[in-house]
């Protein structure tokens, strides 16, 4: 069972009269149906046609309530994040030597033991928050300035927004690469190749960045397009192999990750290829200033046009999937390729197209990193974006809006991590743990339901792909 959009209750008509407050009294055919379906999934007969049943009309508030009580995918996701924060806090507290020491003296000073544990866990999260969203100290500093003019000129104002800016900067490649996983997921494919496609895009964007001379505006546009093409080429290869030979995209993308990783290392090892002329390290020359993605709010904040590109791509993918014939075909081959084929849809061509677009998005992630923050390409520029993209897409339940939120969340974790480590000594790896635990809980809705005693409801989205595997 799938949910295309979170908001409208299944089967509600747009002209829902919405009687409002009478919620709990109204019988609920949709919920009843869902329950029947959950209890005996493969029984068409267990879903009795019931033309006399009152047509579903229950209010939005009522829907929210059922959503929370029944633990649909959205609630589960939120609760998974909460649970992960708790688990992360415990982990953080009880690996800290001070805390462990205090707990050693639990019976002589119980208050101290709990206080230490709380302080450690909470302290780390406070710094994480200050590093990624809002730091009250910067506001205090802002108000100590003589005039607004000096505050702006000396960068105190931008310091206030610096954490948010960092979050957006970190989120940009995550959103783009996350979309590169989410789109194929909607079309029934699993793109593990974010890394190779990222590298492909980054190579082309970087080369165009330092290798050619173009006027202002045009240069940056050419580089961004180049990033898309660089990624898309890799994706096209994957799609074409699947369409022509049946090679499974999971295998091919994983293998291409290695291929591109070493191809990049090769390119960066020779001056006549892409290694910077004055460098002995595996790094390219810096790209031209014209190729930099423009900063959005002045030179003190790193947030750049790449973030807007990411948001535009998310909106574009939503539009593509839900409002166009191409997206209809993508979703159709994702849900049931044989029925799609019978209906005259060219399944193979769509495979190629999906992989091409998705990989192009991953390529854009590469271009966003090179042109937005790094300005050069080294043998580690691809970082863990390929894998993080999968987590982002899973947390976002394979939907563009979800990917944006998941990307921002993980972006915030990444942005806040350095401050957390600097101030509290909590290792930045803590962030990886949080990411992993969040996804673990998201992937196991029954676990979350058990913890929070929610009624089992429609299982959907991510759990499905995880429990059913690739070929289902």
């Amino acid at each position, binding site marked *: 069972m*799938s949910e295309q959009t979170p908001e409208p209750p299944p089967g509600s008509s747009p002209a829902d009269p919405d009687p409002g407050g009478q919620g709990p009294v109204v019988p609920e055919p949709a919920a009843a149906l869902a329950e029947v379906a959950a209890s005996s999934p493969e029984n068409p007969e267990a*879903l*009795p*046609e019931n033309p006399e049943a009152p047509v579903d009309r229950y209010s939005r508030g009522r829907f929210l309530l059922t959503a929370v009580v029944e633990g649909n995918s959205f609630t589960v996701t939120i609760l998974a994040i909460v649970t992960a924060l708790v688990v992360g806090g415990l982990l953080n507290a009880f690996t800290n030597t001070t805390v462990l020491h205090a707990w050693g003296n639990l019976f002589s000073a119980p208050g101290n033991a709990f206080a230490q544990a709380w302080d450690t866990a909470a302290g780390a999260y406070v710094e994480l928050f200050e590093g990624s969203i809002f730091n009250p100290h910067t506001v205090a500093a802002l108000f100590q300035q003589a005039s607004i003019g000096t505050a702006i000129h000396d960068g105190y104002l931008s310091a206030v927004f610096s954490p948010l800016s960092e979050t957006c900067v970190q989120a940009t490649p995550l959103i783009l690469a996350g979309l590169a996983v989410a789109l194929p997921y909607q079309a029934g494919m699993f793109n593990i190749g974010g890394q190779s496609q990222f590298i492909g895009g980054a190579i082309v964007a970087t080369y165009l960045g330092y290798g050619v001379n173009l006027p202002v505006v045009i240069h940056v546009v050419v580089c961004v397009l180049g990033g898309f093409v660089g990624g898309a080429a890799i994706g096209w290869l994957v799609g074409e192999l699947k369409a022509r030979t049946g090679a499974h995209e999971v295998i091919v993308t994983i293998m291409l990750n290695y291929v591109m990783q070493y191809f990049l290392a090769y390119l960066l090892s020779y001056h006549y290829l892409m290694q910077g002329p004055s460098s002995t390290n595996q790094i390219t020359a810096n790209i031209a200033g014209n190729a930099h993605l423009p900063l959005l709010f002045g030179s003190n904040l790193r947030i750049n046009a790449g973030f807007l590109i990411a948001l535009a791509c998310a909106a574009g993918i939503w539009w593509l999937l839900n409002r166009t014939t191409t997206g209809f075909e993508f979703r159709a081959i994702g849900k049931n390729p044989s029925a799609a084929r*019978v209906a*005259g849809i060219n399944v193979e061509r769509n495979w190629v197209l999906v992989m091409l677009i998705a990989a192009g998005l991953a390529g854009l992630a590469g271009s966003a990193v090179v042109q937005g923050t790094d300005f050069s390409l080294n043998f580690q520029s691809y970082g863990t974006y390929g894998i993080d993209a999968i987590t982002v897409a899973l947390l976002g339940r394979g939907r563009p809006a979800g990917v944006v939120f998941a990307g921002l969340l993980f972006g915030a974790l990444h942005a806040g991590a350095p401050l957390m480590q600097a101030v509290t000594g909590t290792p930045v790896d803590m962030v990886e743990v949080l990411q992993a635990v969040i996804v673990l809980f998201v992937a196991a809705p029954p676990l979350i339901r058990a913890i929070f005693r929610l009624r089992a409801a429609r299982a959907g989205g991510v759990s499905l792909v995880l429990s059913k595997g690739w070929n289902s």
Partner: protein
Amino acid sequence: MELELKGITKRFGSLVANDRIDLAVAPGQVHAMLGENGAGKTTLMNVLYGLLQPDDGEILLDGKAVRFHSPRDAIAAGIGMVHQHFMLVPVFTVAENVTLGIEETNRSGLLDRRKARRDVGELSRRYGLEIDPDALVEDLPVGIQQRVEIVKALVRQATVLILDEPTAVLTPAETDDLFRIIKQLKDGGTSVVFISHKLKEVQTIADTITVLRRGAVVGERPPTATEDELASLMVGRNVQLRVSKEQAKPGEVVLDVSGLTVADQTGRVRVNGLSFQVRAGEILGVAGVQGNGQTELCEALMGLRPAASGHVRLDGHDLTHATPAQRLRAGLAYVPEDRQEDGLISDFSVADNMVLDQFDRPPFASGINLNLGAIASNAAELVREFDVRTTSAQVPVGTLSGGNQQKVILARELGREHKVLVASQPTRGLDVGSIEFVHRRIVEQRDHGVAVLIVSAELDEIYALADRIAVMYEGKITGFRPPTVPAEELGLLMAGGSDEVYSPAPGQQETEIATPTPGAGTPGAGQ
């Protein structure tokens, strides 16, 4: 063991799926539960099997009240169930499947495969099941897989065996075999609860027939009750079992198939030089035991499978190498054999499914933009016209009953311009009411001058619809007959007897199906 259900009630929200149902199954009796899809048969059996908890009422075994919290309890109490969809591991052998979950080990702590094989072999002999314990389940035809399910229940000492729509997936010959097995089980003292919506079968096999409608028992009849009586009990109104239709007025040849040869994935020729023509305003019924190339024929007609040789022409245009999309545009309408797999995207809404093959054309799309309004209004119109019972056109089509799903497909295919209708097993798994509806629509198409090709394994359906009958056997047409031909003659043609002298031993087909030789792959089985 005597099984009794008293006042079983099961509600889903406001919906009462089972309303105070009483049922008594005597030992060694075949008790049929007859009812349309959605009448509550399966819900009742799920209650009995411990999958669902009743809201009210009780289950009595030999007069003692019992409660089943899970199928485990039900199995322990001697109740076995064979689901409509088999619960087998395809890559395991029969013996492994049977012992799965109750594996026994030998002294050294290893799986006792020999005992498992012996048990299966022994049961198989006792009930004449003819199962090879070492065969891989995936190699077995559907009919044999079903027997494996039965053995699974018997090994767990089931004394009450529930068969949920057991014949839905079987060929006529396999059905006969199943009935033979049921009789043997019955003689051995096992009670059988036989769930079905097929009147003829129920009359053949049952000792008592309980009819369910809208979750309640509406009557109990002996098997001698007439078909009409049972049908009207089941549907709640008088049902016309025979479609009334005028004499056909065939026009020009519309669909012209000549020398069509089609191979399957393994390269085996499944359709062998087939030639036939369908005229406007006539129904050609293709009869035959399933797996004799009918599936491949339909797929080749729709461009889903390449033709090795031969031609397919529609109105004189050669479509032999056209893509499925081109054929649909050219005026072919197609009702696929497996509607869940090939006909519908069950997660998509009813509305989306109704435009599945024309979403990219006006009025449903302009350029690459979908016109959601047009899709919705099209759905509203078709839902009304085809009487699709659904709470809304926006619900996933998978939540509809089988009959309504088929209506969605018919609505889609007949809703656009077409000259030829190819319908494969159009009423498989449907209840009497829906069958009547589908048949009426098909005859209506013919009367509107559409050339109709019906492929069906059910002789009743062929007789009811066809103006001309073609019989397929091993990829060839063994003969054309008028619909007045006696069933015996068709049966002979279906078993390979032909107009020519060529006539292998009749009944060969049956033995082939019954023999579980791995790899021999009875045609069409297990797909």
